[in-house]
């Protein structure tokens, strides 16, 4: 698999909780290719969150190697990880995590600010990203003036604006009703069709069914890793 954008070998992660040593990941080997649509599943305590933090470069492993888009990121420290997060990863969170006092446009611009993109270019790219998720007419609205689905679209636009290697979504529909969930899943599907690598972290099987590959974690190890021959397709054409 020469085109692997993510390659994990023997990843372990241990936490010291008081006197107890919690082994959240116990040796994970995994490769994800460019333009894959992957769901990572598992019950709580399976190491799913740790895995998500690891893939998102918010955390580093205790052991093993993590190669992301041709760089080894498992031994990086704080500021270097920040740079990787900025350039390689687009986060979509369950609770949206938008800045409440900033407009949709300003929220989407945020990663570009930290990437040092000049103001004009920033506006242009943020506007393009918002238009891409169908919010071209809501750019000046603040998060509290938007519906849940619209907020999550803003978050997706923010995740995409730096053209990251992977889109990493953590329970992206967890706070949405089922109709809105379908709408958001359609956005992911469309992004995947346009060539984006998408990783969903979820515990909901019906969400995971949208992905083309489902990885199940249990007790800090990969329990199963199967191709989904018939991923769910939302029937209405994507925006």
């Amino acid at each position: 698999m020469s085109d692997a954008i993510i390659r994990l070998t023997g990843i372990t992660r241990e936490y010291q909780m008081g006197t107890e040593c919690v082994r959240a990941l116990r040796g994970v080997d995994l490769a994800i290719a460019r333009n894959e649509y992957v769901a990572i599943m598992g019950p709580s305590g399976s190491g799913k969150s740790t895995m998500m933090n690891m893939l998102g470069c918010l955390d580093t492993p205790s052991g093993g190697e993590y190669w992301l888009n041709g760089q080894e990121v498992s031994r990086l420290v704080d500021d270097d990880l920040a740079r990787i997060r900025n350039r390689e990863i687009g986060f979509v969170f369950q609770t949206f995590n938008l800045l409440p006092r900033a407009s949709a446009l300003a929220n989407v611009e945020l990663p570009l600010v930290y990437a040092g993109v000049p103001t004009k270019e920033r506006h242009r790219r943020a506007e393009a990203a918002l238009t891409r998720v169908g919010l071209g007419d809501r750019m000046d609205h603040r998060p509290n003036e938007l519906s849940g689905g619209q907020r999550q679209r803003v978050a997706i636009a923010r995740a995409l604006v730096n053209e990251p290697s992977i889109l990493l979504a953590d329970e992206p529909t967890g706070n949405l009703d089922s109709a809105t969930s379908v709408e958001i899943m359609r956005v992911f599907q469309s992004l995947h069709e346009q060539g984006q690598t998408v990783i969903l972290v979820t515990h909901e099987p019906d969400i995971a069914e949208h992905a083309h590959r489902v990885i199940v974690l249990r007790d800090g190890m990969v329990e199963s890793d199967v191709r989904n021959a018939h991923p769910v397709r939302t029937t209405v054409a994507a925006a």
Partner: protein
Amino acid sequence: MPFFEAVRLALSSIRAQKLKSFFSLVGVLIGVTFLIAVVSIVQGMNVYMTDKFAGALIGVNTFQVRHRPNIQTGDSNEELRRQYQRNPRVTIEDAEYLKDRMKTPVRIAATGNDAVTLTWNGKSAPQIQVNTVEAEFFAIKHYDIAEGRAFSAQEVNVGAAVVVLGSELGERLFDGRDPLGQTIGIGGLPHRVIGVVAKQGTIFGISMDKFVITPLTSPARRLVNRPHVIDDIQIQATNPDQMRAAMEEATILMRGRRGLRPGEPDNFYIQSAEGALSGWDKISKVLFMALPGLVAISLVVGGIVIMNIMLMAVTERTREIGIRKALGAKRADIMAQFVVESATLSVTGAVLGIVTGILLAFTVRAFTPLPAAVAPWSIGVGVGLGILVGMVAGVYPARQASKLDPIEALRQE
């Protein structure tokens, strides 16, 4: 993150919480208000003392040769007073001696003065200052004549019984009648009014217009001094440098005339505005020395308040910090955001302080005779201190913020 971005962010945070922000910058506001107001007022006092006080009482570029000082502002003790009492009186001949010999270009006028009762048409004004002077006195004092004329050197030579009035007497004594041509009694001796001096105003609330001027040789001179004796030789040079030269020259000439040997102290007193201002100089130096202390106390308090507010802000905005870090903010970005926010807060306080300080200075100017003038450098210092206090106060909270773990921070509700 670019600097401008950080300032914009800071301003929007301040706007979002106006009242809290205001309370947090009150300390800096008061400190800077104090700085601006005190500097303006002290500088106003300086201008007032040099221009009005010394200028009006003694005269610009002017000094006086006297037997003892009559304006006491500096140190004084019994020993010095006795010494002045022993000094021989200055005479008309001393004045003539200086006029004949001084090479520095100067105006010289021999003058005497005393408080005498004036009478007109049955009315009397007690304790009015009578100046017996030579004609040059008008030029030295820069007196403008509002009505009539001043007297001439000729009239001084012949001892004419004429008088020029200060404006207050011109207005008050004559029941609204034109003072020119009236005859007033100076200690009972009749003098004809030939002019009125333009209004001089007040110093420390004391009128500078209650005086009369007669020739040095007028009949009234008998009431002021014994024959030949005068109170001052007024000497005016053309500029401050010339004045210093003239003071030296006058001292040397007087010592020569009095036969003083080297090492012997002067037995006369040279009085100048500089000397008269030495007391005020001491006061303003003390004020300027105390000022930094007072300002520093309010700024330290202001800084601590800001630091607390920023620590609270870091706690309240943990999640925001987490989001920013997840999206790629480096430690330095978070640091910069909070330091700039803190500095912006503090500078806002400083700017408000400058405004209230200037208002205070103008209020003082409106209600007192002090020409309180805002010193541009104090505005610069105010803004500078604002930036400094904000940055120092912001560093610790900003470090706390920058060290947050993004995973922990994102978990925060």
